[in-house]
């Protein structure tokens, strides 16, 4: 926590300035401001604007991390200018100067202001961001389990600041990717028991080549989010429900890829890499490789495979037969699969909802374990 009684200090801000209408190239602009260290980077920018240069462009409104207007990059990392203390920003800077830039993946309108309409809001609109009522609509309010609504509160915490969109690495190479913010919003409705179109929504998002299976699982959005929405986690939940509950066998190999890895580990204990590609394209069995879609892909990957074998990168034995863990361990792994997957409902622990035990931060010493006899009885 920042202390509030410290006297004002001088901080230097290095801001990325750009006015597309001017025809000039972007440039860096430095101003030194004076504020108490616990004050925000936004307040610093506003002081620079008031004192030195009224033309500095920054969007802001609530100044309390609620409205989501002042998303920027500070020292290269996305966040809210109003939610970042000056002393913290200085500490994380390379050279003592706080660097402020516009967010990424969106066109710059002026200085730190980006075009949210052109990218972020368009993507949010793409996922039908409203409730489609389950029929028949009850005369009074819908009655739902408390737990089922708690489950969607995490994605509801989104303030639409665009920080996750700014740094999405999939969007960086594939701008059409629906992206973390919009997909987190999609989960907000897929997970809502009052919504009537769970399957339609998931079909749409699975079959779209730039939908849920275009996410590279890079955790950028998880770290970017100032509200702990965990957009990537919501995307994984969309995939889980699409595959396990709705059995959607999408055209992007997404579900087959997941099933392939899950099955290979059940059958081998370890990943059998050579089977991954043909099964993901052709279907999750040993015969997958004979499917035309797999054949085409295998043929195009043949030079890669030949190079690998020639370089002794992989042995022919490993490529053909894979590697396995010992027999008795494999049967233990299979038993775990049967037991966990045989349950009528999946058991998911969401730490956002459940929180941690009070002593969770204390690290126990590493040693030979006996049994967990002292732990409370299991309950699902």
């Amino acid at each position: 926590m920042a202390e509030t009684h410290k006297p004002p200090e001088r901080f230097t801000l290095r801001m990325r300035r750009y006015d597309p209408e001017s025809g000039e190239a972007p440039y860096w602009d430095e101003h030194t401001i004076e504020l108490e260290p616990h004050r925000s980077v936004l307040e610093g920018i506003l002081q620079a604007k008031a004192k030195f240069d009224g033309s500095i462009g920054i969007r802001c409104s609530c100044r309390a991390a609620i409205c989501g207007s002042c998303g920027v990059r500070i020292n290269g990392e996305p966040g809210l200018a109003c939610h970042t203390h000056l002393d913290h920003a200085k500490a994380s800077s390379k050279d003592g100067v706080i660097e402020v830039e516009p967010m990424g993946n969106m066109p710059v309108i002026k200085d730190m202001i980006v075009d949210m309409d052109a990218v972020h809001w368009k993507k949010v609109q793409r996922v039908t961001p409203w409730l489609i009522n389950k029929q028949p609509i009850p005369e009074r309010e819908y009655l739902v389990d408390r737990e089922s609504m708690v489950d969607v509160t995490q994605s509801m915490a989104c303030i639409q600041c665009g920080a996750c969109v700014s740094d999405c690495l999939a969007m960086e190479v594939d701008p059409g990717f629906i992206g973390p913010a919009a997909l987190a919003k999609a989960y907000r409705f897929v997970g809502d028991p009052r919504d009537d179109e769970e399957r339609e929504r998931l079909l749409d998002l699975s079959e779209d080549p730039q939908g849920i299976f275009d996410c590279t699982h890079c955790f950028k959005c998880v770290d970017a989010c100032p509200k702990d929405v965990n957009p990537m986690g919501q995307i994984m939940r969309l995939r889980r429900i699409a595959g396990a509950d709705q059995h959607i066998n999408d055209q992007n190999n997404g579900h087959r890829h997941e099933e392939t890895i899950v099955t290979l580990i059940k059958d081998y204990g370890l990943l059998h890499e050579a089977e991954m590609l043909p099964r993901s394209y052709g279907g999750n069995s040993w015969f997958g490789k004979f499917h035309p879609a797999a054949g085409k892909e295998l043929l195009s990957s043949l030079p890669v495979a030949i190079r690998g074998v020639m370089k002794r990168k992989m042995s022919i034995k490993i490529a053909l037969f894979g590697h396995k863990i010992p027999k008795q361990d494999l049967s233990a792994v299979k038993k775990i699969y049967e037991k966990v997957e045989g349950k009528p409902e999946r058991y998911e622990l969401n730490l956002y909802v459940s929180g941690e035990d009070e002593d969770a931060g204390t690290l126990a010493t590493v040693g030979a374990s006996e049994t967990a006899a002292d732990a409370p009885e299991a309950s699902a």
Partner: protein
Amino acid sequence: MKVAYWPGCVSRGFTPELHGSMARVAPLLDIELVQLDRASCCGAGVIAEHNQELADTLNARTFALAQQVEGAELMMNICSTCQGAQGECQERLDANAEYRAHVNSTLADEGLAYEKGLTNKNFLWLLIEEIGLEKLKSMVRRPLRNLKVGPFYGCYIVRPRSRLGIDAEHPRDHYLEQLIEALGGTVIEYAGMRKCCGFPIITMNKDASLKQAGRHLGDALDAEADCLVTPCPLCHLNLDMQQPLAEKVVGRELNMPVLHLPQLVGLALGLEPKELGLSRHVVRPTSVIDWSTSVVGAAA
């Protein structure tokens, strides 16, 4: 030091030179590897995507096996993805006693149980935090002079920061730079060093996947790196094995060798490139080492 050693799948499958070089390097660093042969794949995040409890149970089994290794100070892995995927499961298991007991009840059939609080470190973390940079420096036999190395971390070992314990005291997202310097090399910083290699979507969106790999390799090339080094074998697959295809996607010649972390350490400790499996890469690391004289560095 004795460690419960989890090599992962890919280091024994499509990148055997990683597991092989780790085995060569360990004795030089006085690390005793007790391999967890009985453990299963971490699931690489995909099993968790399919069924969280299944991933947590399989990894709890691995942790329990590690805790059975007598005299082991900790569990060590050589894969960024294992570190991240196992860390995610461990976070849930450690956070909630009731859930842990629930998972352990499944393991009880085998007489196993995971006890909260395992220390699981990637080889990179172990090098810096357990062995230390000063000691490492004193062990260098072949300083990587003239070698310009670009770090490539892999997402799972740098994000999310809080789960991975990255803070001012443990700048784990800067360890590769510290290590390269300690081994006598020059660090090349470039845009893609902490970005995604693209591997997770190679079967779903091949073009975007290879574009990611190609861009980072190109950025490193523009920054004049001789080679990259990575603690992640899955990144290695996309950056090295798929590099010829990535070249086509980004439309430029790359020819950027990518070393596994133990290979780079092994070179500095005086091991021969062949025994470190450097000849097994798709992109031959000619810019890294003169094969006839074993002199490291492009300018050598």
